[in-house]
């Protein structure tokens, strides 16, 4: 149930099958991201893969002495490109791997193009998704929702991605979905259809307890992606944006050239792996330790007097260089984060956000929001964040002042388009759209729980919010998830508590939720949860989603 390992195993198997010799890896746009998320270039170089090419690039040269490993999505364009390529082969031999099911018809098209008999293998390797963390995958579909239903093409891609996750993990699951969501029901039915149609693919050894695929809709919890984040991975994504593990730092003032784009990959960066779920304060101390360790090292590197010193220097140099790269990268990233936190008054804003999401009294919240809106330091995106949260929270409050806040936004020079998004969010994730009691105001038990929590006080005011998904999955693994709200597809039901769970969030998941799943996995031995989404959201991406309504 580790998605990174699943993709890695596929790719190393491909490379192994072609045997020794110089190789080129031929990919399309999507498979390039899939591969780059799990393998560093130097790692793949070790396997004699020396060139990386895009199938749609025109400038490729004929190099018959290379073996070509083609890893492609089975789209119509790719099959056409490939048929063209085979008619006039540029490389010596071809090993072709599709990331999903390829039809007999398409195999025939390719076979007829291969007059010169250069193709050695045609296989289906189901790595049709992007693995972010061991338990987190995404399909990189930025806008899957149009007019509150599936946008054209994105349902197909989601079904393909989700079934490939199941196949790569060898799971044939029972499917549960969020009853309030039409999109969830359609996705569930489509996945079931594929499982039935390709029954031969899904014949796995039966496990004691069947795995569960739980399909959720972002509309049930539009609050989580609106919040500022304080754990490392989530915070970097919210403030700087992570795109296939890459972070664009070119807007950072005074940035040096080689740091304009950095890669944060837990697979290849130990510091990041150890700290991605730590909160901002802990990272500060850890990075200080890292710096000190580095300084000690560089001191010892500095004195090269005797031959022995020189020898030691040379022996340690590669590690030293690697460490210096890690240090400068994280110091830059953390430095930029703390600059942004100070500049935009994020601590105070975040405190108010958490108040809004978790408890809070209406008039006090309104006061604080108004104060923050008039603060010079607050940037427009955060103003929008606050007003959106307020509207979601107090949508049905008799004295709510959404109109008044919108007026303040207008005076502050927030554009019409952005202000309309407040209504967009209400339509997308408001009370009518939700099938759940997101803020826990109706359920008496939840209400008292919240009340006591309020009395006890909270450990950290900035991280008191727990994503709604956390409680859903928690109930699921305890066997307490209500069947009315999350029915099974089909007649069979699970009697035991599930052990292997795949959660999929239509509309995108967040790194805060990834962290929640990570905690669930750690605290429940024997239970394995993998989270996926059409994309990984931050506020910038979420405001795009309802704006298309």
């Amino acid at each position, binding site marked *: *149930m*580790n998605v*990174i*390992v*699943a993709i890695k*195993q*596929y790719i190393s198997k491909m490379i192994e099958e072609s045997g020794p010799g*110089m190789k080129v890896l031929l990919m399309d746009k999507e498979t390039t991201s899939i591969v780059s998320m799990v393998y560093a270039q*130097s790692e793949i*170089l*070790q396997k*004699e893969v*020396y*060139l990386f090419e895009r199938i749609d690039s025109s*400038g*490729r*040269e004929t*190099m018959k*002495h*290379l073996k070509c490993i083609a890893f492609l999505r089975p789209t119509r364009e790719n099959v056409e490109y490939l048929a063209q390529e085979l008619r006039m082969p540029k490389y*010596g031999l071809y090993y072709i791997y599709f990331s999903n099911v*390829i039809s*007999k018809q398409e*195999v*025939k098209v*390719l*076979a*007829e193009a*291969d*007059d*010169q*008999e250069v*193709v*050695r*293998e*045609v*296989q*289906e*390797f*189901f790595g049709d998704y992007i693995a972010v*963390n*061991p338990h987190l995958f995404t399909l990189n579909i930025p806008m899957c929702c149009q007019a509150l239903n599936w946008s054209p093409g994105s349902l197909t891609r989601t079904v393909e991605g989700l079934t490939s996750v199941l*196949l*790569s*993990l060898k799971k044939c699951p029972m499917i549960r979905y969020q009853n309030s969501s039409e999109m969830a029901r359609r996705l569930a039915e489509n996945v079931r259809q594929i499982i039935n149609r390709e029954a031969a*693919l899904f014949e*796995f050894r039966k496990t004691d307890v069947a795995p569960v695929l739980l399909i959720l809709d972002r509309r049930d919890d539009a609050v989580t992606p609106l919040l500022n984040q304080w754990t490392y991975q989530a915070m970097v994504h919210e403030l700087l944006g992570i795109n296939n593990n890459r972070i664009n730092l070119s807007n950072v003032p005074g940035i040096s050239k080689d740091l304009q784009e950095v890669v944060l990959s*837990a697979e290849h960066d130990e510091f*990041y*792996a*150890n700290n*991605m*779920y*730590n909160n901002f304060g802990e990272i500060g101390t850890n990075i200080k330790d890292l710096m000190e360790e580095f300084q000690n090292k560089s001191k010892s590197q500095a004195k090269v007097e005797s031959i022995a010193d020189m*020898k030691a220097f040379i*022996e340690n140099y*590669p590690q030293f260089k690697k460490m210096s790269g890690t240090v400068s990268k994280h110091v830059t990233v953390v430095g930029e984060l703390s600059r942004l936190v100070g500049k935009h008054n994020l601590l105070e804003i975040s405190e108010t956000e958490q108040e809004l999401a978790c408890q809070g009294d209406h008039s006090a919240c309104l006061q604080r929001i108004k104060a923050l809106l008039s603060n010079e330091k607050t940037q427009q995106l955060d103003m929008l964040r606050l007003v959106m949260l307020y509207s979601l929270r107090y949508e049905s409050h008799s004295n709510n002042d959404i109109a008044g806040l919108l007026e303040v936004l207008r005076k502050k020079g927030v554009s019409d388009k952005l202000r309309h998004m407040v209504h967009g969010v209400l339509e997308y994730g408001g009370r009518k759209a939700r099938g759940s009691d997101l803020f826990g105001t109706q359920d008496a038990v939840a209400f008292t729980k919240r009340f006591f929590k309020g009395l006890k006080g909270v450990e950290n005011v900035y991280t008191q919010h727990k994503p709604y998904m956390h409680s859903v999955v928690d109930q699921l693994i305890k066997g307490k998830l209500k069947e009315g709200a999350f029915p099974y597809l089909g007649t069979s039901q699970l009697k035991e508590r599930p052990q292997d769970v795949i959660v999929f969030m239509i509309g995108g998941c967040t790194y805060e939720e990834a962290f929640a799943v*990570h905690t669930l*996995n*750690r605290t429940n031995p024997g239970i394995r949860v993998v989270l996926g989404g059409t994309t990984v959201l931050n506020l910038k991406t979420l405001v795009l989603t309802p704006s298309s309504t």
Partner: protein
Amino acid sequence: MAMSAEVREGFLCPMCMKDLGTVTMLQDHFEEEHSSEDKDVLQQLRGLLGKAKKKILGEKDSSDMFDTSSSSMSSSTYAVSNLSVTGYDPSVWDPQEIGFVRSRTDMFKSQRGARVDRYVVETNKLIIRLDKLTSSDAPVESSKRRAFEKSVVQWAPDSSVKTCQFCKRNFTLTRRRHHCRLCGDIMCDKCSQFLPHTFAKKLTDPAFQLQSDVDVGFLKRSDSNASLNSILGPEGDPHIRTCANCRKLLERRNDQMEQRNYKPAIVLLYEKMKMCVDNTEDLLREYLPMVESLSAGESIHSLQKAQMYRVKITKLYETIDGLSKKILNLGLNSEEEPQAKQLQLQRAIRLYASNFMQDNMLGLQSLPSEEQYKMLQERRTQEIQQRIAAERLAAIEAQEREKRLQEAKEGGHKNTPSSVKVTEERPRSGSKKLTSWMPSESNINFSDRDDPMIQQMNIIRGYIKQARQAQKFDEVNMLEQNLKELQQEYLRQQRQNWS
């Protein structure tokens, strides 16, 4: 017990790192000192020791089993201390098998086969005919030649076609019909292709080697209307008239043959380099344990042999470095700049080579010098001796305690003399022969109540000492081996007795 560093740590207390000689002592120590500190660790330790015991008792080959179980013990105590580490931990879940895979190769090949077989059969036919036409006993005079050509393949009758199948123009008095000598089809002169005999030879004779680098292939036609014969002149290369279809098939076969036989410079260099890399990896696999054992002062490997390995590896590194540089600079000095991707490939190969060297060479540990090695060896012998003494003491103590316990259980019915007498050394005079070395029985510690195994071990220890004094290192090796085996056996017995 094997004498490596890991096993020396076999009975370390995980809490205070104190070395307790035996399993039971460790357990006792743990219960006395740390029982209050960490119930979990204790629980785990107990479980592990139980497992280890079971394994030891269950397995005949106890020494190996014990090694693995004790190392697993140390690794799992390590894991216990690591549980608190937060963050990303890929080892949380069990290893998984590779995801589902479906091969479409058979389907692909059967589709392709139907198509390609036709080509192959067709081409083979053409090659056989070509062979006949160009054979040395084929007639040359034009009158006989035509009949011969018709016997090779049946010509299509002139009346069967009115237009050229390629340019679709009508045949007239000036646009005459011509036959393809390979398939017998009809076309006009302009659409005819001409295949020189040298090219035919290349296609039909697998052993055929071209004398020069001239490109062979179909003759090129100029745009003029003049017939080919007039271009070539009477003594021009002899050739065969074919149609465009046959030409395509023959050229396809030629390309395939060329590709099979042709290796560009980069491939040759690369193959050499890769071979060196593989050799180096093999050598390193043997060399690294050698260095480790030597720098621990062990005498399993000889220093000379290790030095030889080191030299070999360094030489291989130089070759790899040289070859990869050559690959990097391929074609840079020639007039035609190599293409961009080719350069990229060359750079990537060089990067691969330098990464390989950086990963392995810079970490290539240097060997101890002769003097250092001697010092290491001496230190090791001392350590071993100290250890053996300590072990013995511990064993005796343990036996004692065991006995006392038993006595206590028996309610003190018997009064046996309790303390173990360690008798004094009894020096014995040994005879030393000058011609060949023989161990004498002097300087050997004996105690009457010792286990015969311990006696045996002590004897061997004495021998080793003597052998070392006599500089007979082969014997030392052999004896040390014996000693090790004995110690393992002894340990096993002890454990059986106690449990």
